[in-house]
């Protein structure tokens, strides 16, 4: 069964559970999503469901997007994402809401992490840096040696080095659902979610239980 939604990250706050314990939560405005296409193995070589989210003015979409949605009598939707699933069990045009998620359930949330720009090895990979004292100069945040000498005579591929950090697709797994508001299409999970406020995130049923 498909269990997925596209949503927008609203932000973080804290709420109190029934025991009076404060929980850090991320609030996501998820759905309503429409099933815009069902991919099957015979025609597409794999099975998946395409969902659409965020109804906008038709002028905001390109002609191709409009045509794709119009042929199935769907409203103009800005974000389309595919969800891989073995058994789709849904039809094009069906509406999915936060009601498919229950309190206490685990979900995986995928988003684009905040871009950090060009960062050094300490921040990007957790390197320890150099000694702070004993006559060190300019070596406090240096990455250290990047390899051996004439054998192998080169730096290994994939060596962790300074470079661009963030702004990549990240998935947070096993987040617990602690808030479902069907009226306002809100879902709240315990803990943080990749990306900044207003970022588009994908809410999926948890892969690992």
């Amino acid at each position: 069964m498909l269990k997925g939604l596209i949503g927008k990250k609203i932000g973080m706050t804290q709420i109190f559970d029934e025991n009076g314990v404060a929980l850090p939560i991320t609030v996501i405005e998820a759905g309503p999503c429409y099933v815009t296409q069902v991919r099957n193995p015979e025609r597409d070589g794999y099975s998946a469901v395409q969902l659409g989210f965020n109804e906008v003015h038709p002028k905001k979409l390109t002609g191709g997007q409009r045509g794709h949605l119009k042929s199935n009598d769907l409203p103009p939707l800005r974000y389309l994402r595919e969800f891989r699933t073995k058994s789709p069990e849904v039809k094009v045009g069906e509406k999915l809401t936060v009601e498919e998620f229950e309190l206490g359930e685990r979900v995986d949330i995928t988003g684009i992490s905040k871009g950090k720009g060009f960062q050094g090895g300490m921040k990007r990979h957790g390197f320890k840096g150099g000694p702070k004292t004993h006559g060190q100069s300019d070596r406090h945040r240096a990455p250290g040696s990047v390899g051996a000498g004439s054998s192998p005579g080169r730096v290994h591929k994939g060596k962790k080095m300074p470079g661009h950090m963030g702004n990549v697709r990240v998935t947070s797994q096993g987040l617990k659902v602690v808030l479902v508001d069907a009226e306002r299409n809100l879902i709240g999970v315990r803990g943080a979610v990749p990306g900044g406020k207003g970022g588009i995130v994908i809410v999926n049923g948890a892969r690992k239980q």
Partner: protein
Amino acid sequence: MSDILKSLEAPINENIPELRSGDIVNVHALVKEGERERVQQFKGTIIRVRNSGNNANFTVRRIASNGVGVERTFLARSPRVEKVVVERHSKVRRANLYFLRDRTGKSARLKQKFN
């Protein structure tokens, strides 16, 4: 903060009056002892008040036995804080009374404010 996040805030506890730094208060908080819950009182001076929606909190400092200072921070909107009784106000000039941490005895007193 967005309106959506604001709407998720817990209701304001009617049994907590407006608190100021320097107030001598008695906080009635629920504590769990094994199976049953009971109300525990914590009496002391408010040294810090933070007002920020659901995270609104205040820190109470009291001198326990042997002159050991004890500080406890309460979440103002937590259902575990039953009520707060303000016993008196003090005349203070700053918002955060951290200087009380370095003082003991007579010098740690605050002048009472009448209004």
